[in-house]
């Protein structure tokens, strides 16, 4: 499956803001997501890349239904989406069995559902008799195994994964990574956030690149992830392809371009005008500086390479 089918979820210019308390009655609005658009297709694995603070966690919270977007919209088929949260709600004085029940129910499994799988959880976590002992007596590794075994039972329509693939000691890490990989590769619809480009290249069909709260690029994982890796790991890239000139600067310019356009669109129809205005001014200044320094040609070239450049989030689009 993948592109071509009807998307299970479509984000249209989604933005999310937080209020930062600056003192008594003084607050400042901070946009963690500014303009994010992409489609999620049934059965695919979508990777999300981006540097720290680009809005990945905020995006996951919105996809999981934990918070709602403050602008833009999400259309979809009202499917359940759950973040794979390990050791969620564990209480130290309860037994492994009780914690498995509690954590499983918090993650959204029904009580009969989790009761049915409790033996499978016990077996997978390899806890033996300790399963009926308080987890306060567990080692960190045992707790991690139990946490994984519970979360792995989750079967939402859309599975959201933030970095964690495997946990525990070497042996269990291998086992947990193997089953998780299998799950991601199956027909399950998965959104996977990771810093590790290799992981994403290996597991994902398509990828989204988030930059400063905007979609920088959407498309086939190979293109997007490699472009991302090349942009932010210049040393590695330089080692592999020493004669390519600094594309990094061009990329930065392209983001600024995108941000300006995205801001104009939003400013015209939302109350975020002032915030956005500030951004635009900043972005334009920054872009101009970049262009003066690096020349204009590079940025155009990059636009062609990513197929982006019109608006924040309208990049490679449907991909493949």
């Amino acid at each position: 499956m993948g592109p071509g089918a009807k998307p299970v979820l479509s984000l249209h210019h989604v933005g999310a803001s937080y209020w930062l308390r600056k003192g008594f009655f003084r607050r400042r609005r901070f946009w963690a997501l500014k303009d994010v658009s992409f489609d999620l297709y049934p059965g695919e694995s979508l990777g999300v890349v981006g540097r720290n603070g680009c809005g990945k966690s905020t995006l996951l919270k919105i996809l999981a239904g934990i918070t709602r977007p403050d602008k833009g919209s999400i259309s979809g088929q009202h499917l359940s989406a759950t973040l794979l949260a390990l050791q969620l709600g564990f209480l130290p004085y309860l037994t492994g069995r009780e914690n498995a029940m509690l954590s499983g129910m918090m993650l959204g499994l029904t009580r009969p559902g989790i009761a049915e799988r409790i033996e499978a959880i016990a077996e997978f976590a390899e806890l033996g008799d300790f399963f009926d002992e308080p987890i306060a007596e567990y080692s960190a590794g045992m707790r991690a195994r139990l946490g994984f075994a519970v979360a792995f039972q989750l079967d939402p329509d859309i599975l959201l994964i933030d970095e964690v693939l495997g946990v525990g000691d070497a042996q269990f890490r291998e086992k947990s990574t193997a089953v998780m990989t299998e799950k991601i590769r199956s027909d399950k619809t998965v959104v996977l956030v990771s810093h590790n480009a290799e992981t994403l290249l290996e597991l994902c069909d398509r990828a989204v690149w988030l930059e400063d709260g905007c979609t920088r690029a959407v498309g086939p994982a190979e293109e997007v992830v490699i472009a991302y890796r090349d942009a932010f790991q210049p040393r590695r890239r330089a080692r592999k392809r020493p004669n390519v000139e600094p594309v990094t600067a061009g990329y930065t310019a392209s983001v600024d371009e995108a941000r300006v356009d995205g801001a104009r669109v939003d400013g015209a129809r939302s109350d975020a005008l002032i915030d956005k205005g500030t951004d635009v001014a900043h972005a334009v200044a920054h872009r101009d500086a970049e262009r003066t320094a690096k020349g204009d040609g590079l940025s155009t070239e990059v636009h062609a390479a990513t197929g982006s450049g019109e608006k924040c989030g309208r990049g490679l689009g449907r991909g493949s």
Partner: protein
Amino acid sequence: MRDQHYFDLILYKTYADVRAETARTYIGYLWWLIDPLVAMATYYIVFGVFLQTQTEDFIPFLLIGVAVWQWFAATVSKGANTVRAAASLISQVYIPKLVFPTVAILIAFLHFVVVLLLLIAFCIFYGLRFSPPYTALVLIVAVQFLFSGSLAYLLAALIPFIPDLRNFVDYGLRMLMFLSGVFFAAEQLPEWARPWYYLNPMANLIESYREVLIHQRWPDFGALGLVALLSCAIVVPAIYLLTRYDRVYPKVVD
């Protein structure tokens, strides 16, 4: 289907919290009795022995006041902070925020049921006769459940937005304890103060318990009705806030 799931979750979380609370200590459930007994003994020594408070049947009088007050205080103070305290949970998974104060309300209620049964046993042992007005206890307990629960919901809904409110809860409870007649009867107050005194819902509730358990009289149903009405006026906006901002709380609490 979803509602059933969250209902199950409330029950299991209540069970789990109670288990965790008792499993942490050697004598577990005995603390449910020791806690109110220590409070009662302290107040008895201060008010009954040192200050020589002269009220008829002072021991059951005091026991009722302390037990009822402790239930109210536990519901309000524990329930008030629940949504804020669930910060790490609610930022990882969607759970209706109504779940958290509800669990705290149920746990406090369970504690009180045990204490109330002992209280009734004590009153009968003390020589107070079981009589028809005892049936009104169900109603009084229900009204207090509604009243303390409504405050817990309201505070749980507001504290994430106004963290400073948390401190006022403690001050408020401390003040209200001395204004609710835990240690004295309305008759001991000057004439002019009584109408003011009865504006306090907890004063009415505590007196209702005493009317039934000590004097074997029917409680003032009008006053109970007013307290119930007030509780509804609090609980409706509180639940509205908790559902309205259900998916906003994860942003504010951390």
